[in-house]
């Protein structure tokens, strides 16, 4: 017999329950529940702390830990640089950086790598001066390049174990309910941030707009959030999202887009209720325009559009041509508006989008995807990470995830860029294995992967200009000559991981950037 905190007599053991743990007081075992009562403005009902520094101290960040960020604020992001500056001032060292992706605005990170704040990085992409420096050999440990689905998998399995997630959010309430479609720095879907908020040990939100509680509809839930910091600005709206993705007037992009739409139309995949994903590149956006005409003409509607959502896709949704939108990333302000107002424009997180090891991600239900390429080789392997000079300047993104998930993966690219052929013998770096790529559409013809003979036959029957991919390579070389091989140093600067966690390729130090370091 014993007595609990209320003085009730309890037996030590009960058959079927083993040892009973006596009640010790209402607050004893729930430390996050505050004892002091108060109105809605009192501290017990708020997670807002005064500064990034205070939040960092409260979560107990230590040297060598892993911190993460998301890339929904794109080229307008202030959060990464802001937080790293604070951490540098606080004297941290050897941190592991695990953002969902990095953009050109993150060049100041070069200094933080040099002074030892950052020891290693995993990311979907790197661009600009930071990418140049890393290609030149800036880091001792190679950067890990993963796909969006691959990162979600790694975060969920703990392969990437996030100690503290610093998540910029366009709006939050004092208790940590955040969304991306309201506030002055609206970016739309928070799909990549959600994964971090759910799986990190500690989550700190940074916002420039405190909304009223509860800040619904909620993307990041209060029960995942430790602290909220209010800052002046989380980003530059001009860099976060344009008003509406512009429809290209470039005749070459339009030509490629029209051909890609014709390919979809003739492929057998454009059937009632089909699903699609397009990117935000010029040709990719333009495909939707031609596809729209074709769908109207044939009286076909799509069941859903996935992925990066653009104003063109929103327009088709609002016209009733696409029934549902599943949005992991909103590419423009029209998409942001739609996410806030359209009932069937649904935000999804990166794991639901593309994690290959959960119980079923949405890319598996995708029928048609349009993807870009920096290079594609005659085995249909695609490079979207390194330029033809071997320097990192892109992102893996959802490329390999959607290529394998979709029924028909279409790569759109000009056959020649400037004076460099796009179709070559061996790509500089493999991001997407050729066995998951179905069709290449260029401005000078189409090539179909030999493993899809039925698609090839259908396109030929529709009199589309189908060639062997080797013919396209030869035609490009006829105009450009055969490019001299890129020269690399011995040092490995990047590791390319496939979505399942295995290694696809390595990126070596680019001699084009050789003078950059030491």
């Amino acid at each position, binding site marked *: 017999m014993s007595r609990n905190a209320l003085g009730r007599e309890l037996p030590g053991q009960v058959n079927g329950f083993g040892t009973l743990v006596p009640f010790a007081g209402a607050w004893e075992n729930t430390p996050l529940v505050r004892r002091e009562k108060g109105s809605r403005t009192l501290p017990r009902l708020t997670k807002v702390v005064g500064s990034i520094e205070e939040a960092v101290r409260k979560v107990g960040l230590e040297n060598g830990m892993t911190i993460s960020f998301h890339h929904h604020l794109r080229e307008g992001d202030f959060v990464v640089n802001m937080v790293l500056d604070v951490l540098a001032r606080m004297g941290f060292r050897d941190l592991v950086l695990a953002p969902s992706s990095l953009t050109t605005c993150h060049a100041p990170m070069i200094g933080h790598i040099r002074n030892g704040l950052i020891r290693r990085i995993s990311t979907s992409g790197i661009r600009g001066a930071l990418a140049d420096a890393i290609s030149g050999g800036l880091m001792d440990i190679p950067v890990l390049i993963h796909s969006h689905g691959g990162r979600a998998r790694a975060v969920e399995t703990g392969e990437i174990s996030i100690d503290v997630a610093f998540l910029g959010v366009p709006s939050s309430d004092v208790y940590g309910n955040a969304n991306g479609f309201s506030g002055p720095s609206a970016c739309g879907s928070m799909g990549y941030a959600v994964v971090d908020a759910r799986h990190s040990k500690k989550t700190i939100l940074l916002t420039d707009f405190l909304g009223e509680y509860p800040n619904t509809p909620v993307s990041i839930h209060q029960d995942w959030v430790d602290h909220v910091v209010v800052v002046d600005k989380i980003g530059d709206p001009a860099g976060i999202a344009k008003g509406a993705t512009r429809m290209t007037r470039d*005749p070459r992009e339009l030509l490629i887009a029209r051909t890609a739409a014709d390919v979809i139309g003739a492929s057998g995949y454009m059937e009632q209720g089909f699903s699609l994903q397009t990117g935000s590149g010029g040709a990719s956006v333009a495909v939707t325009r031609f596809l729209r005409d074709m769908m109207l003409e044939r009286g076909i509607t799509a069941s859903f559009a996935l992925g990066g959502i653009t104003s063109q896709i929103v327009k088709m949704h609002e016209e009733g041509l696409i029934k549902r939108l599943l949005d992991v990333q909103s590419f423009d302000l029209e998409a942001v508006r739609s996410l806030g107002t359209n009932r069937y424009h649904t935000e999804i997180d990166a794991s639901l989008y593309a994690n290959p090891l959960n119980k079923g991600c949405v890319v598996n239900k995708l029928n048609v995807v349009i993807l870009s390429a920096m290079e594609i080789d005659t085995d249909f392997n695609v490079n979207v990470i390194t330029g033809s000079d071997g320097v990192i300047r892109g992102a893996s993104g959802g490329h390999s995830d959607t290529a394998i998930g979709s029924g028909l993966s279409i790569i759109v690219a000009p056959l020649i860029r400037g004076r460099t052929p796009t179709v070559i013998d061996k790509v500089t770096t493999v991001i997407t294995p050729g066995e998951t790529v179905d069709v290449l559409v260029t401005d000078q013809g189409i090539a179909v992967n030999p493993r899809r003979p039925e698609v090839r036959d259908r396109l030929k029957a529709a009199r589309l200009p189908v060639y062997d991919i080797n013919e396209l390579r030869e035609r490009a070389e006829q105009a450009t000559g055969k490019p001299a091989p890129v020269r690399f140093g011995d040092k490995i600067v990047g590791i390319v991981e496939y979505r399942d966690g295995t290694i696809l390729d390595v990126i070596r130090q680019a001699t084009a950037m050789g003078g950059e370091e030491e």
Partner: protein
Amino acid sequence: MKLRRTMLYVPGNNSGMVKDAHIYRSDSIMFDLEDSVSLREKDSARLLVFNALKTLYYGEIEKVVRVNTLDGPFGREDVLAMVAAGVDAIRLPKTETVDDIVQVEKVVVEAEKRFGRVPGSTKLMAAIESAKGILNAREIALASPRLVAIAIGAEDYVTDLHTTRSPEGTEIFVARSLLVMAARAAGIMAIDTVYADVNNEDGFSREVRLAKQLGFDGKSVIHPLQIPIVNAIYTPTKTEVEKSLRIIAAIREAEERGSGVISVDGRMVDKPIVERALRNLELARASGIEINEEVRS
């Protein structure tokens, strides 16, 4: 039948455009060495187009080069170089008299011999851009068996007339019609002038419809985005294609039975209707419309 619905105009000094011109699948490409190339770039443009013609893959597309006039310092060299490179047709600007054609033909004959081209393989086209030229169009059109098309250049023509171009094209109506008649009388093609306002798709469409109605075989275009618009207007409708097929089938049947006069859909079919039907089918085929190949002429 060689179609010339669209002739894409490409400045010969712009390497990017020269390199990419063929991807837009116009029926012809016209590389320009004349007005779009400044004096100091005349030789480099000639070299660029020469090498493009020698190197790049053009498939079915007809390669045309607009050369400088022979009375200046560049024309002769232009013709020699382009024939050497294997051009399909030389387009002569500012043609006013039969003699203009005769002179250029002489250089072409010389070049074919010198560079080992098949004699007679280089075709000619003539752009007519003045009142005098229009009034001589009938003779010009008959000046050489190499001549496959004549074209109107409206900008120079209206300047010569002391007027300007209007959206309706009233001022060039007579010239257009005379040019088409001259072409038909000689059994060659007539190509309409360029439309400069690339962003005005409606205005362009109206003008193409007008040109088609006047009898032109096609139009010179200055931007790739104009190509699908012309093709769409020159593409026969489904009804036209079906009717043409019925006409050809009827004529085949009549030939087999040895009977002369036939009728389709209650109307008598004679030679011009058969020709129109054949031309419609050719246009349809070129536009990618599926046609039963057995009726191919």
